[in-house]
């Protein structure tokens, strides 16, 4: 036994049990949520459809964006955005919400946001699976470029984790951050080209617009699904690199304060 030395802080390795836990917690939350409502699993369909319908009515009819193919254009943006937005909003509060749990058992805190992200990713995949037939009916065929979809999804997942981990690490220390996150997401919603195309913006703001990583993802999905082309690789590589840094920083923070969080909650 080492003589009184402080334990080194180390990043927990993805151990089999914790992976099981992440997945099972995600599954349990999904099922619990479905059981809590009368319509249950039907909400998986109703929720995204209604949500998309709302935006479609507002933007296509009332604001009359008058663009051709506006419905698929908008829906692709929305499905993608909703994944990002809900994951960031919910998972960034996950450590704060898991206070009761972590006072009773030890678990690496990274488990909590990760399992929330897995949960929301499953929902996204479901909504995405609903979107595809719609696009086919609308007249966009399946092309070879669909092979890029998994890549886009992995990149978006990485981006989400890169945002979520640092936020989840900081929110328990600074609960006010949640308000900032909420408003930041609203801002980002308008800045991410969900209901307009980057090309329609004036020349001088365009470079700034493209600094937003979400824009590249949304446009990437559109390129693949609507134009049948491969997305531009360079921006995606940049997003991946940035995200990896974010994930590294976030998980380092999480493991640094791993045994501090259970004491904060009161």
């Amino acid at each position, binding site marked *: 036994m080492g003589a009184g030395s402080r*334990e080194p802080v180390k990043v927990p390795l993805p151990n089999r*049990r914790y992976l099981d*836990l992440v997945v*099972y917690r995600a599954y*349990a939350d999904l099922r619990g949520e479905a059981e809590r409502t009368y319509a249950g699993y039907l909400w998986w369909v109703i929720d995204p459809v209604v949500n998309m319908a709302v935006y479609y009515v507002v933007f296509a009819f009332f604001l009359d964006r008058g663009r051709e193919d506006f419905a698929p254009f908008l829906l692709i943006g929305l499905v993608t955005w909703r994944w990002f937005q809900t994951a960031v909003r919910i998972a960034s509060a996950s450590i704060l919400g898991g206070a*009761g749990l972590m*006072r*009773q058992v030890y678990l690496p805190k990274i488990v909590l946001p990760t399992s929330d992200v897995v949960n929301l990713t499953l929902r996204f995949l479901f909504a995405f699976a609903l979107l595809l037939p719609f696009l086919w009916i609308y007249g966009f065929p399946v092309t070879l470029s669909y092979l890029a979809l998994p890549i886009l999804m992995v990149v978006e997942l990485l981006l989400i984790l890169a945002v979520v981990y640092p936020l989840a690490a900081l929110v328990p220390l600074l609960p006010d951050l949640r308000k900032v996150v909420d408003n930041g997401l609203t801002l980002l919603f308008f800045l991410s080209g969900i209901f307009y195309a980057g090309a329609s913006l004036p020349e001088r703001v365009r470079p700034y617009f493209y600094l937003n990583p979400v824009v590249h993802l949304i446009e990437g999905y559109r390129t693949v699904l609507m134009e049948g082309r491969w997305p531009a690789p360079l921006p995606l590589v940049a997003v991946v690199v940035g995200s990896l840094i974010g994930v590294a920083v976030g998980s380092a923070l999480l493991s640094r304060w791993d*045994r501090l969080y259970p004491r904060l909650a*009161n």
Partner: protein
Amino acid sequence: MGQAAPKRLILVDGVGVRYRLRSPGSDRRSFWALRDVCAEVFQGESLGVVGRNSAGKSTLLRVLARIIAPDRGAVTQAPGLETALLSLQVGFIPQLTGRENAVLSGLLLGLSKREVEREMEWIVAFAELEEFIDQPMHSYSSGMRARLGFSVAFRLEPDVLLIDEVLSAGDWSFRKKSALEMRRKIRSEKTIVLVSHNPKMVRELCDRALWLDGGVVRESGETERVLRRYEAHLARRQEGGPPARSAILTTTGGRDPGVDKPASDGSSAEGGRARGNGSGLEGESPRRPGWLFVMGCERSGTTAFLRLLNSDRRIVLGRERFKFVADRVSPEHFEAERFFHPVPEETNYLDPGYYEALRERWRAGDVRYLGDKNPRYYEHLPRLAETFPGCRILFLVRDLYRVASSYNVRAARGEDRWPRRKDYRLAVRDWNRSLSLLRKFVLANGSRRVFVVEHAQFFSARAGHLARLYSFLGLPLEEPPREAFASLCREWQQLRRKKLELSPEMVEHLERKRDRLLEIWALQACPRL
């Protein structure tokens, strides 16, 4: 035990843990739950940790379980050592089935998925949930939930098991079984750290003991020596105060770690209390008041009973008194507010001096029963029974037509918070639920502690009823309650003469829903009336 230099598994060296208090308006910014604690845990021993509330016991366990890291000092463990805090019902989600919850809880506690699945048969059998395991958990009674939580936690086999007072759970027969199993585990070669309020339990189960006080170790070593000192200290400190409470089961999660009360604050509150109870009425057991709870379906006359019983100077029922009691009941042990939530407006029918009078009566010293009334206490019957051992229950039932019409009358007068039309349905539902919960309680605890009163019969103005009630309480009947009873009878007779205002639809509903069997059972459960 272990004379041949047992292997040291954990060394706690000068550990301090500080909690920051975020409550505004408090000038105390932080306090040290543990100040300077040194301790060792050896292989194969059972170490008992004793101490008063907020002495830092739970915090120490959390440090040992490596849930929190200390601010000062260091904890060193043998390499690869697994420690786990025994927690019941961790992470249960009511909407999932028992089986799913068992897996989830097991994963959280540190079992692998395969282990939980392999042990599932044992878990289900031990929890006696064979028929229910695939039902959603919200259909479980609290006892069933406790049983499942216990059975899952029991499959845990860490190198060092940390136990915080949780030795048994569930109803009486299961409690016996689980306590036996737990004792077996503690007495085995396993390494155990047991936190307890109860010196008796530590004496029985532990090889060594550690006495924490105000975040420091007062004494540690051989169990008997440490406990003798600890008990002497308790006796000195409380001078005829209540003996240390026996272990109370806590099965709910999410209670505060050491934040419950800063040590210094706790001791001053303790001192104040000792002065408040200067009469020593709680000292010797014959003078110690028993517990009495009045409950029943809504609108079944619990308020009338409160008035009736409070007319007796030996019985103190009411809210303010519980503020008093809540001080004594450790917040660690149960959330007093859950029981003694602020009583709604309707109860404040008496002058403001009323509660003061209750407290005065309690102080005066010849009080035999303390308690409270709330129609909805039946929801908490198992916890009441555990938290207030030996408590007595007055359970009121009332003809459903009368309950429904009472709802109606009140709604019509516009003075009540139940103006909704569908409330007679609510009445029926509550009625069925309360009776089935009471039946469970009687099955578990026997009927000796329950007195079921049928409202109309009781207030039919026969003095014999009152006499039986008093014989149930074991008190001689005195004059003031007789008067109160007579006046209440008159009052209720008048009410009874009022016409029922029920629509045919409501009558039909009541008729269809009325569960004769339950009613008959309720009346038979207590043949004294």
